[in-house]
Every structure is written in structure tokens, then in C-alpha cells.
């Protein structure tokens, strides 16, 4: 007997296992980023000097990246909708777009934000503003990379599952999408907090 309810939902809860699993994981991520945000507030409140976000960080770049992630959230949910309509080609297109947009986000961040800062010696050890900026956005970026790896697998070798277990594969895309949306939501809060306030 294999583990039940991996694909079909359990009648009394109405959910399949991985969906509960990913929401639990996201709950723990909420606590992680919540702790990071509350640390940010505490450090800022307790510091004798602090920088205004928009003076040290580029608001246009931050806004651009915000939109990039929001669009990628749309494309990832469209990729899931495509599978619900049995359209593997459309799924691949939308998932491919999602991955591309994620890469754009990372490239913009590294090339136009991190590297110039490092060259300017605006690094974490010089002031807690930069310390918390790099940690908050850096950990977020690591989560983006994780999502990209997952999405790339599901776009490439993982997509073989569509031929043998289409419903299970669709569920996997839903779960991956939930994670990706969460990464987007974290940035939605991160952007105003660090760049604008």
C-alpha cells in the first residue's frame, strides 16, 4: 500500500498532501522573513543614524524589479491554468517566461545593485543599513534562486511526468507556483520597506 492522498484529495479535508505541506513550509517562511523584518525595525529604531532608502538605493530599479516579479507571478499561475486545459505547449511557454523573468530579477539585482555597491565600498560592515539591506535582499534572492531551480526542473526533466501522471504533475506545478507567489509577496513588502521608507 502506498502513501494515500498524494494526488486525490482526502475527502474530509478536501486537500492533497503536498498542498498542506507547502502551506506549512510557507508558514515557516513567514516566520523567517517576519523575524528579519522585525530585526530591521529594531535595528533602525535603535540606531543613532540611518539612511533614507531612496538616497542610497535606486527606486526606479526597485520598481522595475517589483513589476518583473509581479508579472512572473501571473505567468506562473497561467502555466498552471494551461495544464488544467491540457495544453503542455502553453505550460512550457508560461513556465519558461517565469524562469526568464526570475533570471532578469536576479541579473538586475546583481549587476545594477550589488556590484555597484560593492565597488563603492557600501558593504554590510560599514553600516547596519547596508548590513540589513544585503541580508534581507540576499536571503530573498537565495529563495528566488531556489524557486528558479525548482521551476527549471519542472520545465525540463520533471515535465516527463505529464505523460504518465498528468494530475500529479499539475499538482506539482500548483505547489511550485504557491512557493513562487510567496517569494513575490515577500518582495512586495521588502520593496517599500527598504527602498521607500
Amino acid at each position, binding site marked *: *500500500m*502506498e*502513501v*494515500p*492522498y498524494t494526488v486525490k484529495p*482526502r475527502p474530509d*479535508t478536501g*486537500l492533497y*498532501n*503536498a498542498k*498542506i*505541506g507547502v502551506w*506549512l*513550509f510557507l*508558514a*515557516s*517562511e513567514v*516566520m*523567517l522573513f*517576519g*523575524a*528579519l523584518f522585525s*530585526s530591521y525595525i*529594531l*535595528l533602525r529604531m*535603535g*540606531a*543613532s*543614524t540611518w539612511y533614507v532608502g531612496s538616497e542610497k538605493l535606486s527606486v526606479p530599479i526597485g520598481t522595475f524589479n517589483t513589476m518583473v516579479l509581479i508579472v512572473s507571478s501571473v505567468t506562473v499561475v497561467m502555466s498552471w491554468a494551461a495544464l488544467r486545459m491540457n495544453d503542455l505547449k502553453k505550460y512550457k511557454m508560461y513556465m519558461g517566461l517565469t524562469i526568464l523573468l526570475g533570471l532578469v530579477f536576479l541579473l538586475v539585482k546583481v549587476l545594477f545593485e550589488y556590484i555597484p555597491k560593492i565597488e563603492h565600498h557600501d558593504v*554590510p*560592515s*560599514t*553600516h*547596519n543599513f547596508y*548590513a*540589513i539591506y544585503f*541580508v534581507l535582499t540576499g*536571503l530573498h534572492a537565495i529563495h528566488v534562486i531556489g524557486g528558479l531551480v525548482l521551476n527549471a526542473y519542472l520545465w525540463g526533466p520533471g515535465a516527463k511526468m505529464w505523460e504518465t501522471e498528468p494530475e500529479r504533475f499539475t499538482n506539482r506545478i500548483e505547489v511550485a507556483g504557491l512557493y513562487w507567489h510567496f517569494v513575490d509577496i515577500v518582495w512586495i513588502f521588502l520593496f517599500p520597506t527598504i527602498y521607500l521608507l
Partner: protein
Amino acid sequence: MTNHHHEEPFWRKYIFSVDHKVIGIQYAVTALVFLLFGFCLMLIMRWNLAYPEEAVPIVGKLLSEEGMLTPDGYNSFGAMHGTIMVFLGVVPLAVGGFGNYVLPLQVGAPDMAFPKINMASYWSFFVGGVCMLASFFMPQGTASSGWTMYAPLSVIATTGETMWLIGMVFLITSSLLGSVNFIVTVIQLRANGLTWMRLPFFVWTQFVTAFLLLLAFPPLEAAAFFQLMDRIAGTSFFLPSGLYVGGEVLNVAGGGTPLLWQHLFWFLAHPEVYVLILPAMGIVAEVLANNSRKPLWGYRSMVYSIIFLGFMSFVVWAHHMFLTGMGTTMAAFFQTTTMIISIPSVIILSALFISLWGGSIRFTTPMLFALGFLPMFGIGGLTGLPLGLASADIHLHDTYYVIGHFHYVVAPGTIFALFAGIYYWFPKVTGKRMNEVLGKTHFFGSFICMNGVFMPMFIQGLAGVSRRLYDGGTTYLHAQPVLQWNEFMTMAALGLAFFQIFFIVNLILSLAKGEKVSSNVWDATTLEWAAAPSPPLPHVNFEKVPDVYHGPYEYSTNGGGNGQPDFIPQNEESKG
């Protein structure tokens, strides 16, 4: 995925297995080795406290030229003893070992919800443990800033704190993966008829524990990351401006605060202590009901209490920080929540005591340990009350009183419950039972020695002897009247070590040639005993998937007598 009809290769069957039973045993064995190691660290520390001028026997040469423990060595051992016992010993055994092995069986499932993630969680724990131990081999020595790793000392220390922090990241990952698995398994994989209020209390405790691990660990992960950055990237998350070290102002940007570390650390570490005790309560409940041949008294109250306890554990953390300059409002807040959280503990302990009333008690070894748990946890809990009251805590904070308090809860508390669990479930895992004479000797010797080690700590603490002192207080005037207890406690600790030999020998002998027993040797009602063979079938557990018709403790509820068994298994359809 159907049953494998071909034999799995050795490394798939025993090393990288996805079977929860194998993973449970891996966790348990690894944890027991760590527990033994942490115990030995303590023995060396206690030798040093009682006989500071004498070389430590056997291992003295490893410690220093003269064979004595150096002050730095003492600090390191203290830090690693705490870390190893909590994070590498008790929790992996209680949750990773017992939880993994027993929980799927008790809910009637073939395995955990995510078997591969289960395997990943064990190996993440293993890597974390290796990192922690690797700190012993760091050039300047092992981590030595307490298991609590307070900044700024832990940031500026030149010893192995970095490995400690890296190890902690792996351990937290392991915990996270495990807790997701446990929660989904309980929600989704319960057998037909196994409603929430028919779950064995052990399952409830593991379920609540999993939530504590899931939601409380991430802030410590954030904090570990911050401290890593402070140590290796020169940041000042926890370093205030103008900090003097060795007569000079530290050359960092400053602007941080050590209090941030304390808040983030204790936000986890308080729920962590409930992670230490909840599975123990679950094990004791199972063993008590089974060996008193009557249902648990107040099952429903116990369930509500454990849920309430889980909630409250998140809002009491700063009772560890009463002396950090907190104002009276917040001190009153934390004092109140701390007093409130004692209520569910009392309800559960009382219910367990009352469950014995009118029972037909079988004094088996697991029962002795479970019975021993009750007053020991009682003492541990009661001695926590003055610590939770902010005014009394001013005198008792950071003294031996605290060490006595928490050791009573964890050592003759949780660890006794874990022993009870080992003696109780050993026949299920192996199909053989452990020797009763050796087991009873282990119990009585350990019970006496545990009290010998920890009761005098209250005396020393009330006199004002601080904790984490290399010399045990000899340089302090107020400690002089109570110093003589140091030798007494060390003797008791050595006695405790002696009696563990009975346990180790028992384990090995019983594994090799223990008495073979039936699949339900204890005449138990819960599914792991009633519906699965001993040991359960690889990968599927049950020959036939059980359906559940009763609550978990139908002992002596069918009248009994007339040659009828005095219990109704959960999966039996008869009226009860």
C-alpha cells in the same frame, strides 16, 4: 509506486532508506550516541568541580598537560554539553526517533506523508551534528559561549562558534522538514475511523511539537545568519557602538544590540523546551494507560491542555530575560503568561496521576520509568515557578537553582520518559523484550542518583552560587557554606554513569539473544501493537490496513473476566 519485489541494495535498505522505521532507528541510535557523549562531557566537568586539583581519570591527558580541565575547557564543555544534549540528543531521540517510528504506526499509515523528505531530514541532522562536533577540532577550540551563544561574547570569541552556527542551520533545516512531515501525516493519513479524539495522546503531543518546531525555529535561523555575518563579514547586528574589548573600542560600525540576539534566540528556545517535554508526556501517557489497565483519566482535558500549552509557549520567552533592563510593564506581561502556562502542565500531570487511581498496576520497567517521571517532572515544574516570577528571579537568575530546575524537567523528567519508551517499544522494533532485572536495576539506580546530582543544586542556587563557574564557586564568600555539595553531586553523577552500564548491556544482550515475544506483548490497544507484527512489515507496516472502531485506551471497559482479554484493540470491531 508498487511494492518492491526485488531486494533493495544494502545502501538503499539501511543507509538512504525512505522507510520511516529505518529512519526512526537511525535517529534514535545517532541521538543515543550523542547523549552518551554529552553525558561524558558533564562527567568531566563535575570531576573538575569536585576535585579541581586532581587530574581527570582516563581522559585527563586529552584535556591538558596536567590532566585537569582548563577554565576555557570548562566553558567549552559547558556550552557543548547543553547544545549536544538539547539539539543532538533529546529532540532527535524524542521526535526524530520515537516520533518517526511510532507515529505512522499509531495512525494506521504505511509511512510518513513524504518519505523522501523524511530521509533528507535525518541526513540534514547528521550533517548538522558533524558540524557541531567539528567545532571541537577548530584551531582555537570549540564553541565556548554557552548553548545560548549570547552576543557580544559569541561574536568576538575566537573559538568554534562559527561551526556551531553552521551546524545550527543544518539542524533547523532538518527540524523543518520533519515537522512538515509529521503534521501532514497526522492530518491526512489517519486510518478509517481514527477521528481526532480517538488519537493516542502520544500522537497529539508529536503533532503539537511539530507546530512548535515549524514556527519557532525560523527566527533562530535568522539570528544564526546575523551572528554568522557578525563573525565573518564584520557586520554589527548584535554589536553596539563603542563596545570596549580588552581596553580598546571595537573597530566595527556599531549600532546593533545584543538584545536582538536574545529575543530571537529565546523566541525559539522557549518553545524548544516544550519540544523537550511534550513527547515525553506522550510516552508516559501511553505507558501509564497500558500498565494500569484502565483508560487515561481526562483525555479530552489533556488534549485541550496540550494545544493551549503549545500556543502559550510562544508568548513567554522573555522570562529568560527578566534581568536585561526590561521595564515593569513587560516584566509583568511575561510573568503573567508564564504563570498561566503552568496551568495546562498541572492539568496534564494531575490527569496522569489520577489515571493511576483504581488501576491494576503492572510494575514493568517501562512503567517504573513512567511512574518516576511524574514526581520528577512535578519537582521540575514547581521549581520553575519562582523563576517565572520576576522579583524572585532577580535572586535566582543564572544560579545553580536554574540548572537544578531545568535538569529536573529534562533529566529525570524527559530522559526517564525516553527510557520508558525504549523499554516499551523495544519489543515492537525487534520482536524481543529487554531483560527486566537489568531494567529495574537501571531504574532504581538512576532514580536515586538523579536526585543526588540535582537536588543539591537548589541549595547552592538559593545560596547564590552562579552557574557557568569553572571553580564551582570557590572564590566567592557566599558560596563557602554550600561548596561541600560539589563532591556529593559528583559522586552521584559517577553513580548515575555506573547504572547506565546496565542499560547499555541490556540493549546489546537483548538485541542478540533477548526473549522472543508476540506482536502485542503488552496487550496494548493502540494500532502499532494491535495491528502490526513485531517488527512491522518493511515499507507497508500492516498486512491489512486497519480500520478503527474505538478510542485509544479501552482497557477494562468490557467488563473483563471469563477468560476474555481485559482490553479492546482500536481496530477490533466488537462492542465495548
